[in-house]
């Protein structure tokens, strides 16, 4: 019950709610637990609440680490 996927925020709605999209499915979730979310952000949604906002720079850095590691390897 802890599985949750990053979803794209498409619209900020009244009462701390937002519309998010994940793989073509649109859902309304609560933003009560996060601050400063805007359309275009990705949030981790769990039991109807955004728990955190994905940091695109950190995501890029992690992916870069994976790539570098491939290069470091002896052939």
């Amino acid at each position, binding site marked *: *019950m*802890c*599985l*949750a*996927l*990053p979803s*794209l925020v498409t619209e900020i709605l009244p009462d701390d709610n937002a519309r998010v999209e*994940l*793989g073509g499915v649109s859902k309304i*979730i*609560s933003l*009560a*637990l*996060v*601050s400063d979310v805007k359309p275009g952000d*990705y949030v*981790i949604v*769990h*039991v*109807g*609440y955004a*728990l*955190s*906002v*994905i*940091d*695109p720079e*950190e*995501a890029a*850095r*992690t*992916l870069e*680490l*994976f*790539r570098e*590691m*491939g290069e*470091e*390897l*002896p052939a």
Partner: protein
Amino acid sequence: MKYIDEFRDGEVAQSIAKAIKAEADPASTYHIMEFCGGHTHAISRYGLEDLLPANVRMIHGPGCPVCVLPVGRIDAAIWLARQPGVTLVTYGDMLRVPGSKRLSLLKAKAEGADVRMVYSTLDAIKLASANPDRQVVFFAIGFETTTPPTAVALKQAQALDLKNFSVFCNHVLTPSAITQILDSPEVRELGTVKLDAFIGPAHVSTIIGSRPYEYFAEEYQRPVVIAGFEPLDVMQAVRMLVRQINDGRFEVENEFARAVTRDGNEKAKSLVADMFELRRVFEWRGLGQVPYSALRLKEPYAAWDAERRWDVPQDNPGDNKACECGAILRGVKKPTDCKLFGTVCTPENPMGSCMVSAEGACAAHWTYGRFRDLETSDA
């Protein structure tokens, strides 16, 4: 899908696997426990164990909230659902977990109790507002990820002055359980396995941050890497842990920096701190009585506490004798060590809690690992 597909790339997984093989010392063994069921699920689903060298072993930990709730609390929820005028609401997974005498909430519902599934705590609040003549009890379970949503619902109930809503609180805390795995004399007596390092929780850490594990790493001298739930996250965490073990370091590192900070989600943490307090002790399936490992509502919220409103039974009849969930949750046994696995016990007809949620070790192995067993036994 963004932030999903890139973290599932098979080729990259192979290259991380190569790096792990190159770095793991063939003369030593590496026992790594993943605490979270989300990691257990990823390991089974993507067959990650097959990518690891034989001396790097993954041990599945107790981190599935559905699996760790003892039978007595499920019985208590069923008891609540059977009280006159009560509508019991909870997350989907909880409906099928067997209590004692193989009764589940789903069976209680079939026998006439008003039991309903909700996706979100806000649905529970809506239900209570729409049905003022019913007592709506939210059977709350989960780790630090589901506690803040329960807190939001309580705040709303207070704002709306809802007199027919209450929470049967079973929220538990991750760091105390990890400590217990290493610390408890009971676990030691019952047998335990060598543990060199931990993969720390993903979504739990979005809330509590990576800081709570610092004390743990230092005190128990075990490295911790917080990792996301995608397969590359898990592989990368294994690699980082192998490195730490090789170097004799025991630090908290954060592989999941895209969603986890050192301090976590302050808004969620302060909401939880306002409304909940520690229970002196709480029972976990497989770990026994764990001190300061669970939460209850604070006094100002007593009006919304189901345990104060009803005299909820507190006994614990214990597990079904044949079910090995307890040993599996401590990492001492594997699902296939259980005689009931895949015969009497399947996800459609679970005998124990580990077969219920997708993150339970038995369910994960049943769904994704069984055919691998067949291949290996054929070979």
